[in-house]
């Protein structure tokens, strides 16, 4: 690996698809045919077939609960011509040609779209080997259940028997090989249970927290609560004297400025058990310093964002003449939509186990950007890639949090210092106070209302000013290109409403000392909330049906925006309209409603090429208690690889959004206030509404699923509240309303 870290990150983190890492680009660039071991055929690092015919998939993707590895096995089974049960799933540490990482809802669809031709090339290689064996043309052979069969005869030869011969032949060019058409799929499209479901229900499943190594020690770390803060004073005596304690040591953080991966300074208490370390840590006495300017609280954050909204931002898109159009308007409508900082709060707290010596480093963690973690550790330790071994046990939830590497780097630094295996384990307070939070946003929407020749009012302009910061530009403003944030600028462009005059601006909140990061759907959540609420407001103002008005703004089939990158799939408004209409139909959009009952609709198109529309049906009591009667959600994700798991992801997304609607991260005197689920209340069982999921079947290549279920829910629910009682909610979480048990 000759690139330095900055160059590597630049090369790896494609910004072309906007919101999240473009894994498809990375994998197609980095995985080329390579060498293999003697007894096996492994022209690509992610796949091997041994001389017994055993197929192994070395996962490049991680299962964080989305079931993607199970889905990927269906894709491999179909394209290779084997049974899913014949595929063993294994994990190997990243290598130069074996990029390992998961994000951007790309796990399954990237394999469907970009790896399938490679699997097909391996299939063709086996066919070519059999053809050579039989001295016939390859076109006379086809595959079936791990065998190549000679057409029109009973003759067949197993993949295992072909391995030795296939290794001597040239791998066909993946571009010259045809993948199977969907009508040939045996496994894709049929629901299959999670591969490892039995190990979960019996308690045998091993997560990062369950890793055990000989002589392992445990660290609990008291971290600086202020990102730009430092240690004022400390007294470690009592902690050092606490039972089981082996060492108490300062752990320097990354610093704040210029650090894409922020990691606070802390005092690590290392003991023989996790519980002893936690107990001893409570006896620490540490005082932290915070710059006066960073003593933020909820009100000061709101003021800062409000002031930013008054400043002109950088223009990320414009069309027509918004200023002139507004001057012609009879009146102007505007509103500001606010979303808070949210935490990921997965159930498995951040943890990592590391062993480091002079020539080797091994890490076990739930981090699912394994290649990036490896690269950072190579730089940190001065090691080559083969000296840094990354292991990935099962992952107890991420939702974006485990894209970050803070806990793993802490474990490595401590293991290096103590020269023993170390497990760093966050407690729930750490989890609450040291997150990489979903960035807060204020989004102002403005439209001018005019009357046409028939005296009918209409809106022909939209001005959007959004105040927000991406994780990248927040601490490394040099990533801005022409002043624009490449990680944020495309998000509003995925919302294709037809106004003649558009003006989209962004104001970046670099100064805010709050660590931020990707969060299930990230900016798609804020933008969908603001746009879909605003379209509702306009429809109501114009006295039009909210569904019909939406559809009328999507009539025109011409592209509103240029492609964000060459390989990006463009929005198809016909597909958008189809999910919207289907959701309305399933939710009985025009059906009778009782007093206090309302329906709201919203939809989105995501950076991973899926479409979703949701209808919320709610009842609101006079005490402002919300009963969510039902959420209906419809997705078009192209070929539905594993339908029941797609359904699970959408149910999860709906619940994710409803959780967020009742909670937020609070700040006081520069620190996060929240401690646990007691003051960061997520949705519980009793609050969960009935959720109907519908998957529109399609022959379009598979697209992403994991982050779309949540995006339209915020606006759908707020639009339903308005429909029910005429109160417009423009700020999340819901302040006066409470989601009741169903």
């Amino acid at each position, binding site marked *: 690996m000759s690139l330095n870290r900055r160059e590597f990150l630049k090369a790896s983190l494609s910004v072309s698809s906007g919101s999240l890492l473009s894994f498809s680009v990375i994998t197609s660039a980095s995985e080329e045919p390579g060498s293999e071991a003697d007894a096996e055929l492994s022209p690509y690092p992610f796949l091997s077939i041994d001389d017994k015919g055993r197929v192994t998939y070395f996962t490049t993707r991680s299962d964080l609960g989305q079931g993607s590895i199970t889905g990927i096995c269906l894709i491999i089974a179909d394209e290779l011509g084997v049974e899913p049960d014949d595929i063993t799933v294994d994990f190997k540490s990243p290598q130069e040609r074996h990029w390992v990482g998961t994000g951007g809802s790309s796990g399954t669809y990237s394999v469907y779209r970009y790896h399938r031709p490679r699997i097909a090339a391996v299939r063709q290689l086996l066919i070519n080997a059999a053809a050579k064996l039989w001295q016939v043309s390859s076109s006379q052979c086809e595959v079936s259940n791990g065998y190549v069969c000679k057409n029109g005869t009973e003759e067949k030869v197993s993949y295992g028997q072909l391995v030795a011969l296939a290794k001597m032949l040239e791998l066909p060019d993946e571009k010259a090989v045809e993948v199977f058409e969907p009508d040939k799929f045996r496994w894709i499209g049929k629901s299959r249970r999670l591969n490892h479901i039995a190990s979960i229900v019996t308690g045998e499943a091993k997560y990062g927290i369950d890793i055990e190594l000989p002589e392992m020690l445990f660290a609990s770390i008291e971290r600086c609560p202020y990102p730009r803060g430092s240690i004022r004073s400390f007294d470690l005596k009592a902690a050092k004297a606490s039972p089981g304690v082996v060492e108490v040591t300062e752990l320097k953080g990354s610093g704040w400025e210029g650090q894409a991966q922020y990691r606070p300074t802390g005092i690590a208490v290392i003991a023989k058990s996790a519980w002893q370390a936690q107990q001893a840590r409570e006896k620490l006495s540490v005082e932290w310093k915070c710059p006066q300017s960073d003593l933020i609280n909820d009100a000061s954050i709101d003021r800062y964002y409000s002031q930013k909204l008054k400043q002109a931002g950088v223009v990320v898109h414009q069309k027509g003449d918004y200023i002139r159009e507004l001057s012609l308007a009879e009146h102007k409508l505007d509103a500001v939509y606010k979303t808070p900082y949210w935490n990921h709060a997965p159930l498995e707290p951040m943890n990592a186990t590391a062993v480091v010596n002079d020539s080797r480093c091994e890490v076990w963690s739930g981090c699912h950007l394994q290649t990036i973690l490896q690269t950072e550790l190579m730089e940190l330790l001065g090691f080559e890639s083969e000296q840094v071994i990354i292991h990935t046990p099962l992952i107890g939830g991420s939702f974006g949090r485990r894209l970050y590497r803070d806990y793993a780097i802490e474990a490595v630094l401590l293991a290096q210092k103590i020269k023993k295996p170390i497990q760093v384990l966050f407690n729930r307070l750490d989890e609450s106070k040291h997150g990489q939070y979903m960035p807060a946003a204020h989004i102002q929407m403005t439209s001018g209302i005019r009357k046409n020749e028939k005296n009918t009012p209409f809106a022909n302009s939209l001005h959007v000013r959004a105040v927000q910061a991406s994780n990248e530009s927040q601490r490394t403003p040099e990533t801005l290109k022409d002043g624009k944030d490449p990680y944020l600028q495309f998000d509003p462009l995925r919302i294709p409403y037809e106004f003649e005059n558009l003006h989209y601006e962004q104001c970046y909140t670099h100064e805010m000392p709050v660590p931020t990061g990707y969060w299930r759907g990230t900016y798609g959540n804020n933008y969908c909330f603001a746009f879909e609420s605003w379209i509702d407001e306009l429809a109501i103002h114009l006295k039009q049906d909210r569904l019909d008005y939406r559809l009328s703004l999507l009539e025109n089939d011409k592209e509103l925006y240029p492609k964000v990158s060459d390989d990006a799939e463009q929005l198809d408004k016909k597909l958008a309209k189809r999910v919207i209409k289907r959701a309305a139909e399933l939710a009985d959009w025009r059906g009778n409603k009782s007093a206090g009952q309302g329906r709201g609709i919203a939809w989105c198109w995501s950076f991973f090429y899926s479409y979703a529309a949701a209808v919320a049906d709610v009842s609101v009591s006079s005490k402002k208690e919300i009963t969510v009667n039902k959420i209906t959600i419809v997705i078009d994700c192209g070929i539905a690889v594993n339908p029941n798991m797609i359904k699970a992801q959408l*149910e999860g997304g709906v619940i994710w959004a409803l959780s967020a609607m009742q909670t937020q991260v609070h700040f006081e005197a520069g620190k996060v206030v929240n401690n646990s689920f007691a003051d960061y209340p997520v949705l519980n069982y009793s609050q969960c509404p009935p959720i109907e999921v519908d998957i529109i079947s399609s022959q379009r290549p598979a697209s992403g699923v994991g982050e779309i279920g949540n995006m339209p829910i915020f606006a759908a629910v707020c639009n339903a509240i308005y429909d029910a009682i005429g109160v417009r909610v423009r700020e999340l979480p819901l302040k006066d309303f409470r989601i009741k048990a169903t």
Partner: protein
Amino acid sequence: MGSEQNNFQKIDFTVNGKPVSLMVEPNKPLLWVLRDELNLKGTKYGCGLSTCGACTLHLDGQAVRSCVLPVSACQGKEITTVEGLSEDGEHPVQKAWVEAEVPQCGYCQSGQIMQATALLMTNPEPDNATVNQYMSQVLCRCGTYPRIKKAIGLASELIKEKGTSL
């Protein structure tokens, strides 16, 4: 550094049907005793504050949060963890969980299963309000609640078919 043997105490209890006798710190939570001393890692640490329910297990048949339960309170008691529900994953609740395809990340599921089992042991056909009240004590961030609901219904059916209580 810290002392080795700080007020260790002998505790006897039964775990998954087997008698266990341990010298442990009496204030150490049962969760950590199971994980550290008995290598029973199916019971999960989620919050350590009794706010999430990931550590739920049975103490004399009752669902309890083992992360805040000092091991000293378990003297002479019977403890069942997810590993002790069945030999082979064939407990009706486990079977229902597989049938309804409940787990996503799976981390909270041993807590969910133990909570649901405790409920069904005393009330094999619980009404909606009872299930709501009971299951709301165990959180899931992946959003598996609709399938937990389905699985509890299935488990209830399986128990009825079997004709015995749990």
